[in-house]
């Protein structure tokens, strides 16, 4: 599976990355090589094999539906935001 420069532009878009042309080109070449490498798995026959997404077999770990004090205040969280206004996180105009 070969990636072309236009494909790496497409992947940058999917990835939410605004890259320069030079960066797109360089990363595109690396990604081509890496994809060629990972295509090694084509040698394997995995017909009928179940995938492993989780290795310790834990599933559906429930807890009581109760409010827990996370130890973090609204003010602390807001203070992390690059911009705030009247107790809210501020972003550029959307519409």
């Amino acid at each position, binding site marked *: 599976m070969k990636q072309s420069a236009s494909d790496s532009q497409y992947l940058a878009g999917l990835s939410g990355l*605004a890259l320069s042309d030079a*960066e797109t080109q360089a990363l595109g070449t690396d990604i081509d*090589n890496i994809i060629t490498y990972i295509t090694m*798995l084509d040698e394997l026959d995995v017909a009928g*094999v179940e995938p492993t997404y989780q290795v310790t077999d834990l599933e559906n770990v429930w807890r009581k539906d109760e409010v827990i004090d996370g130890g*973090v205040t609204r003010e602390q969280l807001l203070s992390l935001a690059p911009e705030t206004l009247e107790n809210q996180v501020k972003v550029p105009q959307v519409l």
Partner: protein
Amino acid sequence: MKSIRDYSSGSALENVNKAIAEAKADVDFHSLLCLTEERAIARAKKLDDGGKKGRLHGVPFVVKDNFLAFGGPTTAASKMLENFNAPLQATAVERLEAEGAICIGKANLDAFAHGGSTENSAFGPTKNAIDKSRVAGGSSGGSAVSVALGIVPFALGSDTGGSIRQPASFNGVVGVKPTYGTVSRYGVVAMASSTDTIGCFASNAADANLVMEIMSGQDRKDMTTLPDFWRDDYAFTKKKVGVIKPFMSDSVDIEVVSRVREYIEKLQGLGYEAEEVDLPMAKYSLGMYYIVTPAEIMSNLARYDGIRYGHRSKEAKNLGEVYTKSRAEGFEAENKRRIMIGSFVLSSGFFDAYYLKAQKARTLLVNEFRELFKQYDVLVGPVAPTPAFKLGENTTDPIKMYLADVMTVPASMAGLPAISVPAGVTQQGLPVGAQLIGDYTSDRALLELAEQVEGVI
């Protein structure tokens, strides 16, 4: 190097001051991104004022800077989080502090723990503790070097594909990657959720064992944690170790193989029979890893969008640009590479061929390990194919860099505990680590075995 015992006589304040002085003397290794001096001294004074003495009373340590910890920013060695001051601490840090340990600094890493040399840090690489012209290994390079230099007796790291074991090997310290789910990951910057583990570095196996015991156990803030098994009875009864044949091949540095063989002889001296075993899926593990991990990285790093915390681009003119420019400016090249590969393997039309196939191949790998652990207590091999390489040697070729992980990713993909233990040095004096891989929850037994070997002259 220091052991925890070295800190039993001094006051907490003396211990902290000593560690900070050591850190300042070793600043050109760049193992630490910041010292949490003020908070450490305040905590030491408070501990010296009395109260119950914990098992790590007044013992200084450092954390990899992807652990949220008070006293300084948590940067993940990235521009994205350069000014991020955590409003909470990682469970692992809280548990150590509850036993009286004192965090004195935040250690360097590859940005977001993506890398195997600490050269991907946005703030410059860490240098190897033995040879400054060589890499520290990574991604937890700063933690390994801090222990190797004797700044602190132990340090925390995270291991997703070898990020504790490989730098431990490169700097001649003990490094522990536990069974997946042993230690809570709450408050640690997420990388790849199905293989991320929290572990530690120490100068000896007994210290590592104590630190792991304290950190391990269920945490309601991390639903993937296993019920505490650390003190459960687990004994190696087969008295047999499997030597992983493909890891001892001609393509591996000859001195690395020799040191590991010498380590195996010590195991034999302790009454273990050693036999060569094959692990045919090992050679596919790196391929699996570089499909599954980027997919998970892509998802986990989607949260860095310049809105609620982290870097926001000053160039952004609209909301879309806030996302894309903040991310482009805040991530390092390796972060971008992995995010884009993740986007590729999960994208429409390629999911089955890459991601699903890799997860199926993972089942085959897990099954091979399961079969081997029916016959063997422990699997042994090198940690990495070479000793620490030169700074800059692999930076232009990502695949060459990835190949440094080829022996550590199999245990990661299977979620098995694996430790790196010092196995001697090369003729040039470079440390070589042996890797011991055990069955699920055999972590403590692995460390006790390593402790026994340390006693063998």
